[in-house]
């Protein structure tokens, strides 16, 4: 419909598929060429096949290296008092033995064993992948009023981040005591393929093009923490855009949801949350609801409560109007009785 092809990034995507929409980063050219070459090499001969295979391996190494370069500083020790502000992978088990998989975040690491955070297991919100827990404020700011505070790696409230190891270490091993805490890097850009750093407003007008894609949004948690399953292990959280109050339903683990300290209401600005996950225009798993299956949940900013103090002067105009109205009513009944 014409109205929907009128200016939004996603709508442009519908008209021009894979045209570098938003901040999506498609697979790089050389890899595509190498794969195609590999296919052609199978027919061209064994020499060409060997050459093609070598080229593919080089591409993979380059991609992994690029991913690793954009990862945040690994193994940051976080002060316990700031634990509430830490991003949480939505596997509900951030504390459980992820150290080995966290190695994917090592800078300059040998990319061969670095799964990279940019490709979370799709369809699985309990991914054990090395979650990129400090994803970008930069993209989040686009259209979402992102307040990921991209000035420093310190989260809300000034978290002191002391690196456990030198960033130049080839392999970083997390202190097991820190495994429970996640790193915060609001400045980190989305660095994985096929992540649409988008806004809630765009999702609320999305069409089938973005269905099933991994997206990243920032919004205010509003309303309530609602039970999604009978056992309560999963929760529904509604995120609201600060721009136009459009909303998106997010399903996440109870552990992730418990990190949200405040829900938006009257005089309450709820916790600002950054969520990465898979968007479903019509989710088959949840009987057709339009939702976002969270894979990574970051707390960007805590909620704020505004007081509504009692002020007598604000009631004076109303009280005066009521007094005048009652006087007029009294006068009316007096005149009516006098007539009778």
């Amino acid at each position, binding site marked *: 419909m014409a109205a929907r092809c009128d200016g939004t990034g996603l709508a442009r995507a519908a008209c021009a598929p894979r045209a570098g929409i938003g901040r999506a980063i498609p697979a790089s050219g050389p890899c595509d060429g190498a794969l195609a070459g590999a296919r052609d090499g199978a027919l061209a001969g064994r020499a060409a096949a060997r050459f093609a295979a070598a080229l593919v391996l080089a591409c993979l190494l380059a991609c992994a290296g690029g991913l690793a370069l954009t990862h945040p500083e690994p193994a940051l020790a976080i002060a316990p008092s700031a634990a509430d502000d830490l991003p949480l992978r939505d596997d509900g088990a951030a504390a459980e033995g992820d150290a080995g998989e966290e190695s994917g975040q090592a800078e300059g690491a040998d990319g061969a064993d670095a799964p990279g955070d940019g490709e979370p297991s799709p369809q699985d919100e309990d991914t054990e992948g090395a979650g990129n827990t400090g994803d970008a404020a930069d993209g989040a700011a686009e259209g979402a009023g992102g307040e990921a505070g991209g000035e420093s790696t310190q989260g809300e409230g000034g978290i002191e981040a002391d690196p456990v190891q030198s960033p130049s270490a080839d392999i970083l091993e997390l202190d097991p005591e820190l495994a429970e805490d996640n790193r915060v890097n609001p400045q980190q850009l989305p660095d994985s393929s096929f992540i649409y750093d988008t806004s809630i407003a765009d999702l609320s007008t999305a069409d089938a093009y973005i269905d099933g894609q991994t997206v990243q949004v920032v919004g205010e948690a509003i309303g309530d923490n*609602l039970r999604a399953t009978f056992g309560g292990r999963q929760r529904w959280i509604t995120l609201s855009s600060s721009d136009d109050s459009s909303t998106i339903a997010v399903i996440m683990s109870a552990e992730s949801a418990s990190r949200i300290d405040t829900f938006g209401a009257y005089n309450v600005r709820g916790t600002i949350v950054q969520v990465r996950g898979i968007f479903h225009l019509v989710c088959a798993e949840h009987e057709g609801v339009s939702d976002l299956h969270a894979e990574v949940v970051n707390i960007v900013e805590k909620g704020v409560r505004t007081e509504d103090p009692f002020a007598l002067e604000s009631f004076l105009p109303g009280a005066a109007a009521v007094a005048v*109205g009652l006087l007029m009513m009294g006068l009316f009944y007096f005149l009516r009785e006098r*007539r009778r």
Partner: protein
Amino acid sequence: MWQRFTLYDLRVIGHYLGVLVLFSSLALLVPFITGVLCGEWVPASHYLLTIGISLCLGSLLRFLCIDPAGLNRQQAMVVTGFAWIVLAFVASIPLYLSGQYVSYLDALFDGVSGITTTGASIITDLDHLSNADNMWRFMMHLVGGLGLIVVALSFGLFGKRSGASLYMSEGRSEHIVPNIVQTTQFIAKLSVGIIFVATFVLTLLCLFAGMELPRAGLQSLWLAISGFMTGGFTPMSTSVLYYHSFAIEAVLMVLMIGGSVNFVLYAEIWRGRLDSFFRDIEIRTMLIWLAIMTIVFAASLTATAEFDSLPAMMRRGLFMLISAFSTTGFQNITSNQLVTAFSSGAFLVVALLMAVGGSAGSTTGGIKFARIGFIFKSIAATIKENIAPDSARVVVDYNHVGRRVLTPETVKAATTIFVLYVVTYLIGAVVGIAHGYDAIQSIFESVAMASNGGLSAGLTAPGMPPTLEVFYIFEMWAGRLEFVTFLALIVQIAVSLDPRRWRRR
């Protein structure tokens, strides 16, 4: 033939409108108390001011005629017609003061939508609205759904002399009991009782879902009011989808169906006459209509890639079907899904369901099952007359609280209203198209407004063109009055303002 109103008529009309405005100050006490109890001092001050304004305005209007006589039919028609718009103006004051509306016109739109139980809303940031303001939105649904005149009569506001005229001019022709006041009291008590039970059940479900008790209680009350009054407002911007609870949706479906049944039939059930309920022409028309539309709707949904799974179709499709036919306007899908994921056939089926609406004498809008039933019976009678011998006399009867004969006057009245509705739907669609919107969406929105259905395809949003907004306000107003009163009002005003008629006197 056309008699214009005299000055005395206008004074009497003004007096009774003042009575209604004064009554609205009682209704405004509810959100005021809510604001005080919840510590929402700013909204509470707004409602205190609005109470004062309504007291002053109502008293001023009553001064127009200190001791009026009873209302005649023409005066009652004007009082009924203007009551909705005058009260909407008063009701919009606290909404505008809340700061959640771009302009007073937007607040007036929501005020009219609330009182006429349309349910379309152009509020900004509903999720951060105060409990006091939310309470007022649903009080408008409660008062409007029962009927302003019904509520006023049940409180005896108009005395004993004017009840019948007012009751009939609000589009109600059936007396549950011979006494008008007792009839209105029955309707009010039945509604309050059902809402109370539904609130209790919904509160338990909301608590189970994870809400806190005060919030669960308030939201349940509001949903129960909106569901049984077939209003459509919800406390959260995502409508019923927010709760992600099939149990809550099921309770609301029962409420919506209950709200679309004629109150007269409730009295029959209360008296133990169940056969009267199942033989009623409206119930039978409803069952046949819903069966046909469910099949068509399901077939059109299966054509979509997204909703072709049975669980999705059952849960989302059935709820939307019931919400549309009862002209409630609840949604358990997003507006984007309604426009994007639904096929055009399913989209138009929803519009058609809203267009026809529910039962006469209920809280629903639309053309009404009774009229559709009369028209089809008339068609059947016409065919029978053509087939039957010349000497035969074809008599068509129907069942509605007893056996009745279908008279030509009944058919004429039903056909007139049917045509008026269809013409209004088309005019509204043309107005929407003239503002640059998509044709199908314009038709959908026009039907939603005129039938007081409230489902929105996206045209009704903050920032919509003011001219379109004003037109939709008139559509909602006309739909609530079922056109005859509305058109008669316009004609009466035009005649009264015609200078040629002044000179004759």
